[in-house]
Every structure is written in structure tokens, then in C-alpha cells.
């Protein structure tokens, strides 16, 4: 069926095109033509087929107001995210985090110095940056982690072989590995969302499953306005308005990953 045809196309194109082509050719080899999805060889951006109720964007982005964030808000954000996504609470250094509170200077290694005003934020929140140029997608040997056309970096837990190359590749420490079966560490399982199994990598997915149902990411909803989410390509979107209103920074921008999580300072 479908699968066989795809396999044939894969083989045929390997034969026809050889292994040629570097990154820009990814588009030629990959997403072009009849298959708008997974690249034949190189990773490519996956088309998003939005249902009738889905929220859509050209480029999803998040803006976090570091001055409005409090430890309490962050706690709520972490709680709701980890609860609805069945993120286990493992008390060791083999733990799993999709979104977490951390010190400001750990977030912005290059931007903090000792003479900042006394009231500058001491804490911040870290999550996957859904980079425009994600190193995790570049290094994944099976395309288990891939990027959608709207920018969201997704995980296919069915395909991940657990090599953890993406975790070495991610310069933000945004990824976690299931060193063990997570289920015993989930206080109450949310049946609408799968748990993971031991041996795969996971991370924040910008609540892609909620966007598909027309809902904003869960952490945004409980952030009491400290976090906004929207289309970076739309000048009227809340994220663009927030970015236009104040000065903002991103984590380790010199690495060229083009993070799409912005922090207002």
C-alpha cells in the first residue's frame, strides 16, 4: 500500500540521486513533490495538516516576561505541563523535565553580570526553544525528532532508538531521557496523553496536541499573562506586540540555533 510505495520511492530516489546534496538540497530531496512530509533522506520540515478547530501559525513563538514571572507562576506552569503530559517525577539526576525553574544566570550565561539592579529577576523558566535551526534535528539518526513547517520541534517516541545524540546536540539542556520506566513515577496518569516508555528521549512540544484542538499551550494559560504565545510572522500577534514593546533576549544566540522562545527583560 502506501508504505510500499513510499519505500519504493525512497529506494528509487537513492538510486537516481545518489547521496548527493547538502542542507539546502534537503528541500529538493525531501519535502518537495508529492510527499509533503518526511524527507526521503535528509530531515525536512513536515507539513502541518490542521483540522478545522486548530490554531495555526507560520512560525510559532513564545515570549516570556522575566519581570512578571514569579516562582509561584513558574510552579503552576511546571505543574500543569508535567501533569497533562504525564511527565514523571523522578527524584534522581536521571530525572525528566519539560519546563523548569532555574537561576537567571544559568539561563543567560553571557548576559548577566554582578552589577545589575537589585530588583532584576533572579529566576527564569527554561524549556525547549523550538529553534529555527535545531541541532537536535540535525544530529538525529532516525528523524525521530523532526521539525514542522510552523517551527515546532516534535518527537516521534515510536521511532526514537535512545542514542541520546540529540541530548548532546542540544545546547540548552532541554531534553530528557527515560532511563527507566516512567510510569511508577507518575502520580496520576492523564489518559488523554501517552506516557513514554523506558529508552526514549522526550521534551516540550509547545503543546502541539492542544494547538490541534484550538487551545493555547497549557503553561501559557496558567502564566497570568507572564507568557504569551503566537505567530511570529504576524505583526498583529501577541508575541510580535510583546517583542515590539520591550527589549528582549534569547538563550545563547551566538550558537546560531535561532531560538523561538524570547525573554523580555
Amino acid at each position: 500500500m502506501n508504505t510500499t510505495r513510499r519505500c519504493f520511492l525512497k529506494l528509487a530516489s537513492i538510486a537516481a540521486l545518489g547521496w548527493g546534496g547538502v542542507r539546502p538540497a534537503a528541500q529538493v530531496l525531501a519535502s518537495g513533490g508529492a510527499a509533503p512530509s518526511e524527507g526521503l533522506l535528509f530531515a525536512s520540515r513536515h507539513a502541518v495538516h490542521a483540522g478545522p478547530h486548530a490554531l495555526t501559525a507560520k512560525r510559532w513563538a513564545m515570549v516570556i516576561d522575566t519581570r512578571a514571572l514569579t516562582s509561584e507562576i513558574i510552579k503552576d506552569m511546571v505543574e500543569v505541563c508535567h501533569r497533562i503530559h504525564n511527565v514523571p517525577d523522578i527524584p534522581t539526576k536521571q530525572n525528566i523535565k519539560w519546563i523548569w525553574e532555574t537561576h537567571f544566570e544559568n539561563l543567560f550565561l553571557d548576559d548577566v553580570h554582578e552589577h545589575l539592579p537589585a530588583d532584576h529577576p533572579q529566576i527564569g523558566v527554561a524549556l525547549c526553544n523550538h529553534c529555527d535551526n535545531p541541532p537536535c534535528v540535525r544530529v538525529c539518526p532516525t528523524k525521530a525528532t523532526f521539525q514542522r513547517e510552523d517551527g515546532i520541534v516534535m518527537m516521534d517516541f515510536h521511532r526514537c532508538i535512545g542514542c541520546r545524540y540529540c541530548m548532546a546536540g542540544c545546547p540548552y539542556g532541554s531534553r530528557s531521557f527515560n532511563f527507566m520506566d516512567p510510569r511508577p513515577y507518575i502520580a496520576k496518569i492523564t489518559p488523554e496523553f501517552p506516557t513514554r516508555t523506558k529508552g526514549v528521549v522526550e521534551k516540550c512540544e509547545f503543546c502541539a496536541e492542544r494547538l490541534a484542538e484550538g487551545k493555547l499551550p497549557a503553561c501559557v494559560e496558567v502564566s497570568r499573562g507572564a507568557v504569551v504565545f503566537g505567530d511570529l510572522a504576524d505583526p498583529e500577534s501577541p508575541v510580535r506586540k510583546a517583542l515590539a514593546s520591550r527589549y528582549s533576549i534569547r538563550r545563547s544566540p551566538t550558537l546560531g540555533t535561532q531560538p523561538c522562545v524570547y525573554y523580555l527583560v
Partner: protein
Amino acid sequence: MLEKALQGTKLYWGWLAFLALLVLVGVGCYWQQLTHGLTITGMSRDVTWGFYIAQFTFLVGVAASAVMLVIPKYLHDYKKFTKILILGEFNAVAMVLLCLLFIVADLGSPQRLMNVLLHPTPNSILFWDMVVLNGYLLINILVGWVTLEAERKQVEPPHWIKFFIYLSIPWAVSIHTVTAFLYAGLPGRGYWLTAVLAARFLSSAFAAGPAFLILVTYIARAFTGFDPGKDVLATLGKTVVYAMIVNIFLFLCEVFTVSYSQIPSHSAHLQYLFFGYHGHGVLVPWMWASMIMGVAGILVLLVPKNRKQDNMLIIGCLLVFIGAWIDKGLGMIGGGFVPNPLHEITEYVPTQLELGVSLGIYALGFLVLTVLYKIAIGVKQEVE
């Protein structure tokens, strides 16, 4: 030729049985890992690669060393190496096998291993590592077997094998280059983000690999009376010492760039490895031991007189080999992950189960190496 592996002394069978026992220990430990997951290792959210990947990295180098025999023999017609060439090739077979086993041991979901072939992804360096490692394995099995068979029949090896012999030269370089590229292309990992990494990997490989070959040849000589030929090992010792000098030189280049530029994200790792960082320094004594052994090995082997003395050559090779093993098999991977991208420190120490799995894998590699050497030396002695 396989029958050569089936005829041996009690000592030979005893050694194989001992190795098989260790393999069983490894299987037992791996069973724990399969059941409970990689939680049985010392790895963590911050240090996601550990002892397994480090062994793989080191052993790729030992495997690549066959080329240090092939180049003199086939490109410079240096006939002295003819006799031990097969030892280099069969050594490469066993070492690449070890590499592959260590990679599989490190996978969180080994049952999905074939996804790498089902969904080939050339933008991942791991994909290319899979290609070059398996290729090198096949080339060395082919070349080793065909040339040995020809030798046994006392005829010239077929012409077509030359192609694979020449191919094995760039291929050997490629396996360690690609392995270095696994690390050297990652943003945000300052210790690895250096163009000199591949060159460093190759130089330490061409030191540790031939050093290992010299040592196992001595062992083979002690047990079988196999004579590698006059001065052959001493000559190979020359390769060891100069490669080790280049390795130390490249390391010092790295030290200069990192410490003179004083970019924290690069210097923090070296600081952690050699002086400890914010009170954490589990690898400090190891790293200094590695440096001292490397330099001492050079000093021993640089003197031509020492290279010609069996004992001194053995001591020098041991120093170089262990020094390089600590550098790559302990420091290289752990050091790259500490501190993590958020500049937090989580240290890594392998667990007993992790070492048990590694022991089993090593035992299996040595078992294959023993059998292959038994065949090779058996054939050589039969011909003589």
C-alpha cells in the same frame, strides 16, 4: 582455515572458557540493563554518554591502527611488515566489533536499532559512523581472509584484493574522523567544538593502536613462538612514539587556544578535567596520570636503544596505551558534558553493572581476537 581455531592446547581452551565466562557475566549485567533500562548506569540527564561511548571512541582508534602497517607495506613496499600485517587486520576486525557492541549497549531502545537503516538520515553523523564502521569491518574481514588463504596455498593473493587493500587506507582514516565529527560539530559543547579534535583522535589512535599491536604480538610470541621478524616491533615502536608526540602537541595547541582566549565555555571543561571545577574533580588524578604516562612513554620510546629492548618497548607501549585510554576512554566524553550547557555540574562515575557490561563486551572482543590470531598464526606456522 577455521579448523585452526578448533585445535588448541588446554591453555588455549582454558583462556577461551575464561573469556566466555566473562561474556556470561556481561550478558547477566546487560540483562539487568534491558529489564530496568539505562538507569543501571551512572549516566544522568546532564551526562548522557558515559563509559560505553567512551570505549567505542577509544577502540575506533585501536581499529584504525591497521593502516600504520598497510601504508608502509603497500605504499612503500616495506616488506618487514608483511608478517604482522594480518595481525593488524584481524585486530581491526575484533576492535570494530567491540565498537559496534558498545554502541548497541549504549542504546536506550536497542530493539529499534534497525531504524537507522529503515530511515537513513545522512544529515546525522551517527548515520555515517554506522556506514564507515560496518564498511571497515567488512573490508578487514575480506582482506585478512583472502590474503591469509592465499598465503596458506602459497600463491599470490588475487589482484582484485589490491583494490580493497588500498581502499582500507582512507577508510581507516575515515572511521576515526567521522567518530571525531560526532562530537566536533555540536554547538554548546566547548570541549569538543574544535577542528583539531579529528586530528587529535587520529594521532592518539596511531599511537595507542600500534602500541596495542606490539603488546599482543609479544603475548602471541610468548604463547606460540610466533616470530614477527627482526626489528619489526621496534620499527612499529617508532610509529607509536611519533604519533604520541603529535598527539601531545595537538593537545597543547588546544590548551593554548582555550587558556589564552579564556572563553569560559571552552576553558571550563579543561579546568574541570585537570584542576577540578567548583569543588568537583573526580577525573583530576586520572587526567594527570594520563599526561604523565603519555610523556613518560614518549621519553622511553624516543631512545632507539630502548625500542630494541623487549622490556623497554613493552613498558613504553604500556605507558602510551594506558595514557591514551584514560584520555579518550575516560576524560574525553565525561569532560565534554561537565559543566552542562546551563553551567551546572553533574559528575559522572560508571556503576558496577555498567562496568560489568563493558567487561563482557571486552571479553567477547578478546575472544574473537584470540580465535582470529590462532587462525592467522596457525596458518603462518604451517606454511613455515
